[in-house]
């Protein structure tokens, strides 16, 4: 069966959404640098709605044009900091969006080219697979304004790069290139500039096209458990999910046999 498409693109808050072949595409759509207008660059309710289609098999996040995202724009950041009453809530909303993406039961791939700074890098870190172009640049520039990454980057980055490298990246505010980013496990694949989107989209298709959703969901849940649970609990749960799928598969095979008989 051909995958489903939702051709009508929806753009809210400088973030766009469409579905191609059962893959949802979120585009940070505020060119040229695709600054995030606010921490919740897509409202959580909107994101829940977008990701609620039960045939979706993967999500791709990319930036419009040459860049992934420059993160929060400085003047927005200052305005946000001055608004003391609401700053906590504003940041919590942004965190909720990234947590929602990270905890989805379908794979989320970030297709990164050009700049991937600050909040943009935090979006990428919440994805399950990061693919970047050879000209991509990464940084947490927050320190230059006397602040730090606020959307979970300080928590997600050590999980990939280790503490020492994370501290250096955040405290220096320095920019690193694609190769260095791969070396420190911030990105998983580097491809040529023209190919980032196609490569990422094709990988998602290849991984999910022939796989039933329950299998995809079980794999994603097992990976989530690896992040969150103790080894004993994670293994117990993995065996339970295996058993559930095996039961269904055994019944399916029995059914096939009976039909043949």
């Amino acid at each position, binding site marked *: 069966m051909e995958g489903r498409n939702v051709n009508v693109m929806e753009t809210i808050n400088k973030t766009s959404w469409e579905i191609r072949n059962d893959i949802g595409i979120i585009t940070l759509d505020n060119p040229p640098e695709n600054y995030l207008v606010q921490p919740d660059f897509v409202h959580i309710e909107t994101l829940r709605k977008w990701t609620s289609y039960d045939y979706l098999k993967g999500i791709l996040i990319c930036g419009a044009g040459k860049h992934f995202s420059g993160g929060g724009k400085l003047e927005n950041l200052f305005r946000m900091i001055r608004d003391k009453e609401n700053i906590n809530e504003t940041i919590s909303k942004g965190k909720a969006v990234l947590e929602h993406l990270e905890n989805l039961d379908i794979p989320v791939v970030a297709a990164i080219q050009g700049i991937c700074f600050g909040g943009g890098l935090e979006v990428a870190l919440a994805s399950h697979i990061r693919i970047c172009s050879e000209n991509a640049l990464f940084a947490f520039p927050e320190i230059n304004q006397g602040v730090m990454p606020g959307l979970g980057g300080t928590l997600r980055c050590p999980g*990939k790069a280790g503490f020492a490298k994370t501290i250096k990246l955040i405290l220096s505010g320095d920019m690193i290139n694609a190769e260095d980013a791969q070396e420190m496990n911030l990105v998983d694949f580097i491809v040529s500039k023209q190919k980032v989107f196609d490569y990422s989209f094709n*990988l998602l298709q290849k991984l999910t096209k022939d796989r039933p959703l329950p299998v995809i969901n079980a794999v994603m849940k*097992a990976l989530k458990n690896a*992040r969150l649970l103790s080894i004993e609990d994670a*293994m117990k749960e*993995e065996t339970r999910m295996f*058993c559930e799928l*095996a*039961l269904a598969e055994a019944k399916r095979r029995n059914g096939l046999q009976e039909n043949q008989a």
Partner: protein
Amino acid sequence: MKIPECSTVQLVFDEDIGFLELNSPPSNTMTLEFFREFASLIEFMRDQQEFKALIISGHGRHFSAGADVPVLLKEILEKTETDKDGRLAGVPEFLSNNYKSLLMLESLNIPVISAIRGVCLGSALELALFSHFRLCGEEAVFGLPEASFNLVPGLGGIYKLCCISGQATALVRVLKGSTFTAEDALKYNIVDKIVPKKALMTSALAFAREVMQDFKVEKRRLYIKKYLS
């Protein structure tokens, strides 16, 4: 000392080193009986004090092609409790025992080394992932093919692969379900060293002798750096 008698897997000792060999040629398929016998041997190893290392390998040309899936499915269908809607109500004990024996393997306080030759697929790769070190011969073939027959690795393989190779590699390898080479396995940290096929057992043994003198599992990476790179 009485080693439990087994037909699908053998445990023998050479001085203070144990050799556990998967033995249902040609592909050393892991049957229900294998999992029972394997568990009893690991339990036996846990209670021994005089042994200093354990080397796991497959009889003949292959490590193992993994679980006997049709039989496993049949057993699960028979043994699994379901609710009135036919949904899973409880995981059968024999299945839980399988992952528990891998946990027990990992918690042995002697170095556990998998020496992998030929194919190492599915549950066999999961078993190898729970040993402390993995050496493989050139041309060894790895894979977690479960997703291609509508299943997932179920013995903690996803968990372990995520810890060892990272989330992205685990996701790609498990969902793709295709096999990969020894070189890829090295790149993913799934194996610690590739050695010539014929030198596999001697390399594993030499490594065991080095590392068993003062084995502490938390120094794993240090030993790999010191003796295997």
